[in-house]
């Protein structure tokens, strides 16, 4: 089979209800075999046509079914019911419609150039919108697959005065689960990225895991494909029942889908677990953005899989850890309002540990916390906010592109209107009412829009996945147009057709018999409308192009900004020996030996380890600096990191004073610390920081070096206090290896992995990436807007140029005679050309002025997405209008030249 039908089948599966899909597919394939006899191209095109027509016919069928019921029958009646009710209003309207449609097609066929250009322009405009809607539809409007009655699911949330937190502590969850009257079940899960080392018979792999409450799958209404889900008694006390469910993907990948997997044993971070069930492949969890993991464990097993175990236990018992997303299923008799009210009542009975902790820890009044129900189940408040931030400007951009496209088609239609005046005159002379003429012209527009919308669906089919990939969040799900997208596109195309078709239709229908008799010359009002449309296009283009300019400037700035470290040729990978039963001193020994051996590898410039990597933040802690104002209550707060010897050299953070950590900065050596420039200047202003002492955790640490400020949170963050400790003196079991290489870091990966496996073949190596990738991901937020908006900006500019060109060419064509007369009277070529050119530039100037005002007024809306550039950036606001004027001049140039080449004699001979 060729490629095209396969794509078409995918589209079909989207559009058709699943029960019918298979039989339709069968018929299509059977037909395809036959059509192939007439050639591959014919067969493919025919196949596409069939698929695209199916939804259309479904609509027709539904309409006929309705009219069957209300008694409006078909056009031709034979058989016993030959009672002549075809003269009823409904069928007369149908007849007229059919006539108009047929006529519309014929008009298009007569002028295929116009039809193709119009459909292409509309298709791009509609397609851009359908693409964006596909994203919104799959992220905001559609529940993730497999959930039973997703409308009954609601997410619990904590409202603060100005914030919304979608996470709860475990004791909070248990309270709301056990004391509410409105939910038939309340589940909780931790969707944080937990990577486990999974040991099967002969291999160790790493896999993502979620910890979930025992009723997670029951509340969502998802049944395992094999085995069972968790039991209540498996999730009552920390660490007692080591059971796990695996995903269907994991099951087929590692077990060859063997049913005997149930009750078999598996080790997670070295602990033995029993597999109790297999989760269906289609299941993506209750969140539209997160990717579902391969493993699911009961919440109470959190401790068993954490290095050391203490953190997990703290999480289960502590009330200050907000880590669980809590989702309930409403009872059938409960509605959202009563549920919301009920949550308030419940909260008053529950002394939230978090609220009292906040009160005890912070003096300022943060306002009361309120537990309620969230806006979306399948998106957390933060995710929704983030998505909205990206999608809103994009939606506005595609909307503007569509408006420009509509204006373009309207201009084309107006130009054609002049040519069709005679036709309309004849129709009017033969007795067509004005309404009938408008109806027919609108039908033509709707046909254009309809074909444009098919084109648009095809654009969305490929574009949505692409656009989703550009948004700097890891979005799960397949972004393909489905029925709602189809509906949206058709509605949009209809709206667009009315928009671009109505004015030309009203204009043209005014033609009367007089026009038939003497062709009237230039229509003043039509010219005004054309000019207004061109100006409107240019205005919108300026707004879009300015936005694009601002985003591009942000991206350029972000790429240049000093991160404080070197991103090139750095390999990062995680190994957590504590996950494999290593005690603290064994872990340290392992890390020490590994660093030595990795550094010996040819092609490795240096290697070190670190607790935190850039853009993942630092820990925060306070210290005292004796001899400064930062003592006792005035403890100085700083971000801190624990790193190995040679860290600064490896990651490329320059040491500006003193030295960095060496391998003898260990348990036996004196306690040492490296501070950044910011700390050195704030704590010891005007002094040499090296040699000073700080007190943290009641221990004295001597400053041995001062490092340059480096970015650990966001690109462009304000410099902040940073201190670094030697990991051998202040150990924590989370470790990332950082390896600086002499070439492409990925080529060194096998050797590094081999070194680690030689030491311990069972140890899991995960999160392998380069520092460059980490940075690129951060830059993604700037590049997506820059790329997409710049694309739309260029499209807008291009369409406007086409519009201006069209209007100018039309004008020259209409005035050939006049120009000829002028030239016969002695006008110079130069004068004629500059008259036309001047008119184009004058139009553009009006558009530019309006556009700059509009862009200036609306720029503040995108300020939060910009970086390193003001929303009212003077450079952008000067260059973009200049560029547009240049483009406008270019678009007017050809018509102007054509005007200057008019031969007076020829022009006068015309008519």
């Amino acid at each position, binding site marked *: 089979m060729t490629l095209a039908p396969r794509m078409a089948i995918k589209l079909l599966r989207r559009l058709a209800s699943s029960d019918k899909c298979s039989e339709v597919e069968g018929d299509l394939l059977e037909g395809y075999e036959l059509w192939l006899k007439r050639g591959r191209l014919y067969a493919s095109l025919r196949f596409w046509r069939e698929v695209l027509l*199916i939804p259309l016919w479904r609509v027709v069928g539904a309409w006929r079914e309705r009219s069957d019921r209300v008694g409006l029958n078909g056009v031709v009646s034979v058989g016993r019911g030959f009672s002549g009710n075809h003269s009823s209003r409904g069928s007369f309207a149908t007849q007229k419609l059919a006539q108009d449609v047929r006529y519309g097609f014929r008009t298009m066929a007569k002028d295929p150039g116009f039809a193709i250009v119009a459909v292409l322009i509309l298709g791009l405009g509609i397609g851009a919108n359908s693409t964006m809607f596909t994203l919104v539809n799959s992220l905001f409007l559609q529940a993730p697959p497999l959930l039973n009655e997703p409308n009954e699911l609601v997410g619990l949330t904590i409202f603060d005065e100005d914030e919304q937190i979608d996470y709860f502590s475990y004791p909070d969850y248990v309270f709301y689960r056990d004391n509410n009257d409105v939910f038939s079940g309340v589940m909780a899960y931790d969707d944080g990225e937990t990577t486990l080392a999974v040991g099967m018979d002969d291999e160790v792999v790493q896999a993502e895991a979620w910890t979930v409450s025992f009723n997670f799958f029951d509340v969502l209404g998802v049944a395992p494909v094999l085995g069972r889900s968790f039991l209540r008694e498996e999730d009552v006390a920390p660490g007692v029942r080591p059971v796990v469910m695996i995903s269907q993907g994991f099951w087929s990948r590692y077990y060859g889908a063997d049913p005997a997997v149930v009750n078999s044993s598996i080790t997670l971070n070295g602990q033995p677990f029993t597999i109790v069930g297999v989760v269906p492949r289609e299941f993506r969890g209750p969140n539209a953005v997160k990717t579902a993991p391969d493993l699911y464990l009961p919440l109470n097993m959190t401790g068993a899989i954490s290095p050391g175990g203490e953190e997990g236990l703290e999480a289960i018992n502590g009330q200050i850890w907000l880590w669980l997303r809590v989702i309930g299923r409403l009872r059938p008799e409960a509605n959202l309002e009563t549920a919301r009210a009920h949550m308030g009542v419940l909260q008053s009975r529950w002394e939230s540990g978090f609220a009292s902790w906040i009160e005890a820890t912070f003096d300022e009044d943060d306002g009361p916390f309120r537990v309620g129900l969230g806006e979306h189940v399948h998106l957390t408040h933060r995710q929704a906010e983030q998505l909205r931030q990206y999608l809103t400007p994009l939606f506005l951009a595609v909307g503007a592109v569509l408006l420009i496209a509509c204006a373009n088609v309207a201009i084309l239609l107006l130009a054609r209107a002049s040519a069709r005046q005679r036709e309309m005159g004849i129709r009017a002379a033969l007795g067509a009412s004005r309404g009938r003429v408008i109806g027919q012209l609108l039908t033509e527009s709707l046909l254009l829009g309809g074909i444009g919308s098919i084109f648009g669906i095809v654009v969305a089919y490929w574009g949505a996945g692409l656009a989703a990939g550009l948004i700097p969040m890891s979005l799960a799900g397949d972004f393909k147009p489905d029925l709602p997208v189809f509906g949206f596109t058709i509605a949009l195309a209809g709206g667009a057709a009315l928009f671009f078709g109505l004015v030309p239709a009203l204009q043209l229908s005014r033609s009367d018999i007089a026009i038939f008799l003497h062709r009237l010359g230039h229509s003043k009002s039509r010219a005004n409308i054309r000019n207004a449309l061109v100006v409107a296009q240019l205005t919108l283009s300026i707004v879009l192009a300015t936005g694009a300019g601002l985003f591009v400037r942000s991206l350029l700035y972000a790429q240049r900004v000093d991160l404080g470290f070197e991103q090139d040729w750095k390999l990062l990978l995680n190994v957590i020996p504590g996950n494999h039963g290593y005690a603290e001193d064994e872990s340290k020994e392992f890390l020490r030996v590994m660093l030595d051996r990795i550094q010996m590898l040819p092609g490795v410039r240096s290697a070190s380890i670190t607790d935190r990597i850039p853009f993942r933040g630092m820990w925060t802690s306070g210290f005292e600096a004796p001899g400064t104002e930062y003592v006792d209550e005035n403890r100085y707060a700083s971000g801190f990191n624990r790193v190995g010897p040679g860290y600064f050299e490896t990651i490329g953070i320059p040491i500006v004073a003193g030295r960095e950590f060496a391998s003898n900065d260990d348990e036996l050596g004196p306690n040492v610390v490296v501070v950044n420039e910011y700390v050195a200047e704030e704590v010891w202003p005007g002094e040499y920081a090296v040699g000073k002492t700080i007190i943290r955790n009641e221990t004295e640490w001597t400053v041995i070096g001062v490092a340059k400020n480096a970015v650990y949170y966001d690109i462009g963050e304000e410099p902040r206090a940073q201190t670094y400790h030697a990991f051998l003196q202040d150990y924590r079991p989370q470790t990332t290896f950082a390896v600086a290489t002499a070439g492409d870091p990925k080529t060194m990966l096998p050797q590094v992995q081999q070194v680690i496996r030689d030491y311990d073949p069972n140890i899991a190596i995960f999160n392998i990436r380069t520092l460059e990738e980490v940075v690129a991901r951060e830059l993604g937020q700037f590049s997506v807007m820059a790329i997409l908006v710049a694309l739309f900006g260029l499209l807008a500019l291009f369409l406007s140029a086409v519009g201006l060109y069209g209007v100018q060419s039309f004008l020259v064509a209409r005035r050939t005679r006049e120009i000829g007369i002028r030239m016969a009277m002695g006008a110079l070529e130069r004068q004629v050309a500059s008259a036309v050119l001047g008119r184009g530039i004058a139009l553009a100037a009006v558009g530019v002025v309006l556009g700059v005002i509009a862009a200036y007024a609306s720029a503040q809306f995108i300020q939060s997405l910009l970086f390193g550039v003001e929303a009212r950036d003077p450079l952008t606001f000067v260059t973009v209008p200049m560029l547009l004027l240049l483009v406008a001049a270019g678009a007017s140039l050809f018509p102007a030249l054509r005007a200057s080449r008019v031969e007076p004699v020829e022009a006068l001979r015309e008519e």
Partner: protein
Amino acid sequence: MPGSNLREFEELVLLAVRMNGEKASGATIQGALDTEAGRAVSLGAIYTALDRLARKGLVESWLGEPTPVRGGRRKRHYRLTPFGLEELTEAREIRNSMWAKKVAP
């Protein structure tokens, strides 16, 4: 029994169903319309017509077993109901009797 109105297209589809006997399916009907009436009709139109005919009780359909030819996809078969045959016959009789009338001078 109240009469039902047959569209011309529906009549053609019914005829194609009759012609193909037990083998009538979306694809064979499409083929028949192509060869017999010279019409390239889209499958969507045929399904719509068949749905309407089924609603009116003129055809009935059943889902066949997967066949190897169709890549393991199930096939929906159609056949005329007795009422469908009756309607079709009557439509033909009306036409025939009208054709048999003399053309008024």
